[in-house]
């Protein structure tokens, strides 16, 4: 047991650096993902066929591509086009592009929970598409979107560990360092699990809070 705590105490620097980067990666990607994902979701329910087609194509391509390949594409293939992206931004872009496809589908399914009559009534009042979506549909859709959205965000938080393979020193890179330092892998992995629990629990509480706050009788 003493050995277990010693692993953390002796390697604080690595755990702090690693998890700080994980949080940075998550927060930056989360902001862009929510924006891009909502935009894509709006495209998929928009009345313009070209936008719908673009949204559908985006979701189908990105959702069917393993995240590792999205990373590999940005880090190994894009430089061949003489486009140079640094590794941390590349990781943010990869996570954003990939997770947006999932956020888009959460938004779309949320919108679908709003009765068609709501949108029709809004249109009958002369509202534009932006107004219908922004004032009538999305606020209602938001409520049913909370739990799946949190699942997507939690998945993204864990997906940040893939960046370790692409030169971003975050929590996923800790095991490699610890192995080289000769620390027991079992304890290391347990500490990483505990680290992620600490990061994910607030998200779970946020979900509960929002669910309770926005609950409505239907």
């Amino acid at each position, binding site marked *: 047991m003493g050995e277990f705590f010693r692993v953390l105490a002796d390697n604080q620097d690595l755990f702090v650096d690693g998890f700080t980067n994980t949080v940075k990666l998550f927060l930056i990607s989360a902001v862009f993902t929510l924006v891009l994902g909502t935009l894509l979701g709006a495209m998929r329910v928009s009345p313009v066929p070209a936008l719908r087609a673009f949204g559908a194509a985006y979701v189908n391509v990105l959702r069917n591509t393993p995240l590792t390949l999205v990373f590999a594409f940005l880090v190994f293939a894009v430089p061949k086009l003489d486009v140079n992206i640094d590794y941390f931004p590349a990781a943010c872009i990869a996570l954003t592009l990939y997770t947006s496809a999932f956020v888009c589908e959460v938004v779309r399914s949320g919108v679908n929970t709003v009765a068609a009559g709501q949108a029709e009534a809004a249109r009958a009042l002369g509202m534009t598409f932006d107004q219908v979506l922004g004032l009538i549909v999305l606020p209602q859709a938001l409520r049913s979107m909370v739990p799946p959205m949190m699942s997507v965000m939690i998945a993204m938080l864990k997906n940040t560990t893939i960046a370790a393979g692409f030169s971003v020193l975050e929590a996923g890179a800790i095991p490699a*360092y610890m192995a080289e330092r000769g620390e027991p892998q079992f304890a290391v992995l347990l500490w990483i699990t505990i680290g992620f629990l600490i990061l994910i629990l607030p998200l779970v509480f946020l979900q509960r809070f929002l669910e309770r706050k926005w609950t409505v009788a239907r």
Partner: protein
Amino acid sequence: MRIARMAALTAMAALALSAAACGEEGAPTPSGAGNGSDAPGGDTCQTSGTTFTPASNVAITGSPTYDKIKAAGKVSVGVKFDQPFLGYKDAQGTRCGFDIEIAQYVASKLGIDPTKIEYKEIPSANRETAIKGGEVDYYVGTYSITDKRKNDISFAGPYYVAGQALLVRKDETAITGKDTLKGKKVCSATGSTPIQKVRDEGLTEPENIVEFKTYSECVSQLLDGKVDALTTDDAILKGYAAQAAGELKVVGEPFSTEKYGIGLPKDDKALRDYVNDQIQAAFTDGTWQKIYDGTLGKSGSSATPPTLERY
């Protein structure tokens, strides 16, 4: 130009796909004296041509590892697969290189035919775990003997002494040694000793340190101009320089001493002593030199057998 780039891009995507698919041990690998010299391209294995005849009447008493190997009639060996001229697996699935032949030599001395070797590609970070867990019987793959590692496993050897050096693009003139790295992007394997040395000694700024899982990925970044130098043991770098002839070169005096040992289960002293004896025999009878000259020696630098450490 545009088309060429698109083609390169598609090829990269295909490569990434196949790399992902090959994470698992794929097709059975023809091992031993496989020499696919008739296959096209530079990705073919070249062996030193040394033949490894399984020894009969092997007697090692008190070694649980050997008992296990003997009972199974085969041996599982941890290796690297992406280090040209050291531990390499070519497009045909043939394995070759200095470390591979050392592994085959040791197997033959354990009475196992080298074709009965079950190779396992264990990344550096998982080596101790694989040996401790019995996943491999021994490990031969640029495995530096360190006191910390001796807590977990045992080492036979060293069978080779390497030193940390730098690999740069052929036209690079600014980087000549470890003290010229400031402001340059330096790549190595995630968490590896060489990159920790660069970080600890402040050879370059922390934001200029680039880490990938494998050295090959660093080589790719080096060729694309995204990093300026790759640092690790000169043995590994010489292999890459020989592979990408005309594009890369090794610079700088070695600035560390890495003694490569054969990783063995801890407390199996009987096996360690036996393997040490066999390595010594290879030093003395010229087998070691023959293996070296036929593999790493092709990079143009000569080497002589090191001195065994029987700790």
